[in-house]
């Protein structure tokens, strides 16, 4: 089948990227700084793609994604540091608990619309942060020490799995149901879609992968603190999705990679970075509210060219 050929093509491309990265690292061509940047890129990519499912595909405006990142980070850190279990178990545990948190947050709030949902998710993320802040077991405000366990291999493959799962979900009857909710919730309901179920499902899957990102993030730094998971972090993730184009998976991927570079180069000028970010956010909304890619995928750009040619022939 043609579609599966395309899939294998992408997979091979991904493995080549992984191989090149791994080779550069093991041959010491790139130093720790760039290694760290590659891993951060993967983390941001996971965050962007998981939020893309909630905002871009399902149209539910959640701005509390950092809350699930925090849950994943702390739960995974407890699993490795306090319980002494392997990293892979920690990633799964972080993801599953984040997903449960997603269900807990999603079920009451997803009945709300637009602005109200946004504020409610922001509120929940803050509650999660304040709860962590008040638990002495994980160090409260001072934070929790975490061993460095994240490698390029872990970061890359978790990111790859995130993209494959969310892409597969989107390209199915379930994904179409979610998009129909984004397009018109009342019509979707009237066509027999259980809208609550799909909103919660998208939210839970999004939270799951934010949890994975949290685990990878926690084990890439030496200490995690509640302050790292405030709403500024949520806005950072939001910017990836908005800039990439609400509804475009490849847009989210591209902007996550691009903005990781930008942030890294502006790391010594954090104010300038945030001024540029916020200006970009405003200008994009004023002049190109659909973001870089709109709802299109990068593959559509090639397709539409071909199709354009064909219709001329007819």
């Amino acid at each position, binding site marked *: 089948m043609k579609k599966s050929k395309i899939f294998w093509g992408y997979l091979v491309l991904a493995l080549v990227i992984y191989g090149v990265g791994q080779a550069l690292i093991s041959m010491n061509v790139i130093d720790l700084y760039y290694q760290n940047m590659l891993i951060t890129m993967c983390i941001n990519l996971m965050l962007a793609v998981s939020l893309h499912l909630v905002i871009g595909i399902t149209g539910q405006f959640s701005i509390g994604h950092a809350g699930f990142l925090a849950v994943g980070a702390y739960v995974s850190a407890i699993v490795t540091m306090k319980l002494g279990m392997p990293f892979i178990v920690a990633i799964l545990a972080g993801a599953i608990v984040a997903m449960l948190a997603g269900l807990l947050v999603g079920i009451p709030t997803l009945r709300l619309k637009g602005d109200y949902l946004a504020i409610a998710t922001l509120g929940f993320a803050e509650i999660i942060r304040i709860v962590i802040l008040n638990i002495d077991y994980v160090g409260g405000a001072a934070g929790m020490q975490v061993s460095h366990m994240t490698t390029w291999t872990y970061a890359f493959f978790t990111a790859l799995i995130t993209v494959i*799962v969310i892409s*597969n*979900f989107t390209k*199915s*009857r*379930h*994904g*179409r*149901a979610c*998009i*129909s909710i984004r*397009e*018109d919730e*009342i*019509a*979707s*309901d*009237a*066509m*027999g*879609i*259980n*809208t609550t179920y799909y909103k919660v*499902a998208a939210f839970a899957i999004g939270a799951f992968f934010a949890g994975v990102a949290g685990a990878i993030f926690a084990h890439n730094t030496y200490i995690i603190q509640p302050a790292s998971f405030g709403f500024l972090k949520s806005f950072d993730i939001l910017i990836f999705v908005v800039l990439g184009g609400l*509804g475009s998976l490849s847009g989210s991927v591209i902007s996550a990679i691009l903005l990781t570079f930008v942030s890294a180069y502006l790391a010594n000028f954090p104010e300038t970075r945030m001024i540029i970010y916020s200006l970009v956010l405003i200008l994009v909304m004023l002049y190109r509210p659909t973001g870089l890619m709109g*709802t299109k995928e990068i593959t559509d750009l090639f397709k539409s060219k071909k*199709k354009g040619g064909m219709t001329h022939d007819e």
Partner: protein
Amino acid sequence: MTSNTLLQVENMGITFGGLKAVQGVNMVLQQGELVGLIGPNGAGKTTSFNMLTGVYKPTEGNITFDGNLLNGKQPYQVTRSGISRTFQNIRLFKDLSVLDNVKVANHSLAKHTILSSIFRLPTHFSGEAKMEQESLAFLKIFGLDKYKDELAKNLPYGMQRRLEIARALAAKPKLLLLDEPAAGMNPQETQDLMELIAFIRKEFGLTILLIEHDMNLVMGICERIYVLDHGQLIAEGTPLEIRNNPKVIEAYLGEEVVD
């Protein structure tokens, strides 16, 4: 309630903030009937549709469909039990392709789970293929198959109205509710629409209830007509009876558009 009754509405009413928008509506639809629901603007026609489809919860009365009570059901449950609808102000999924619009309504046709789709299990592929086939068949009936990859928002207006009906049919209804299907259409398009409605009714063995302002259409194809005014039923009968009913004439007086 005879064995042939599909929909029975008893004393249905709804109150919005103290205002009785619709009250005391009684309606019976037999299997296979084509019935019109007319009335001046603001009479409560669309509100009645919204109650029948679960969008609004009636504050009084009972709705029985196919032997089951519909009160308190969510819209998607109502749809799955066999009532689907179109909207007065077209509500297509604008950024989805024409084919995908129909596929959304076909959702319950396939049974593959979320996990099956994520892991691309065989049930995913067979389910999706079945949906594709079925949805294309619907598009063909409506002459929309050549537009299948267009985004719904790029279709011409008349085609959008057709797609709404195609999508409603894809949800496999026993009862189809059409909310002003001819709104904004020219006489030729309306004529085509009348033929299409007659055709799908026969082809799918449908029962149809339609709201329409175009009296040619209503009088032309409906077997029975209900008339709403100020939220209450004021008349019921054949097109001929309705045309000569003094109450109906009075309700429409002052409104210039009678036909």
